[in-house]
């Protein structure tokens, strides 16, 4: 078994603005973005779609990335995900 050390000091965060997109648009935008960043980096998804705010954490758990946080910011949500693999 190999282990991978993730340094949060060098991790970067990219924001994906998916406000206005309906399910599963925000999830798809997250996945497209997560493929392009390094392990340990974070993606923040901004979504005005409540379903996606609930569903993205489910996807993150299913495929074993890490949910950093979900925050409601007035008319939209911020969902931060750390790429783990």
């Amino acid at each position, binding site marked *: 078994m190999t282990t991978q050390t993730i340094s949060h000091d060098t991790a970067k965060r990219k924001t994906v603005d998916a406000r206005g*997109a309906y*399910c599963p648009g925000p*999830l*798809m935008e997250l*996945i*497209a973005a997560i*493929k392009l960043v390094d392990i340990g980096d974070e993606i923040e998804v901004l979504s005005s779609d409540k379903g996606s705010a609930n569903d993205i954490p489910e*996807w993150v758990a*299913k*495929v074993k990335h890490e949910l950093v946080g979900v925050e409601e910011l007035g008319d939209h949500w911020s969902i931060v995900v750390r790429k783990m693999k």
Partner: protein
Amino acid sequence: MSGMPLFIVLCSGEHEKIQMAGMIASVAAVSDRPVQVFVSMNAIFAFRRDSKGDYRGGEFSKLLLEKKAPDAVELFQQGKMLGDLKVYPCSMAMDITGWAEKELVDDLFDPPAGLTKFLSDAEGGQLVMI
């Protein structure tokens, strides 16, 4: 680890059902499930290059278009790009319409397949009819 393979037979030409099939296929494919879709009957018309975006549907179809929900065909294309998704035009549907593969939308279809092959593959997973 991959989940149980999912097989979708898409034969409805209704926008709402094609949208739902696109949502299921794309989300499953990006959630570590291999997905195969078999497109036949009235559903094939939505995937013709010349009629892309021209859907036939009911009340919810109007809402999907008005609210600019993700396009149904593009959902399949995203699932193909980001996950393990194969989409086969039914060889019978291609024969009946007389269409060549180049008449279908780009960046989506695998070569036409017969029902026998699809059903044989589907023995190893879960089959959904839409």
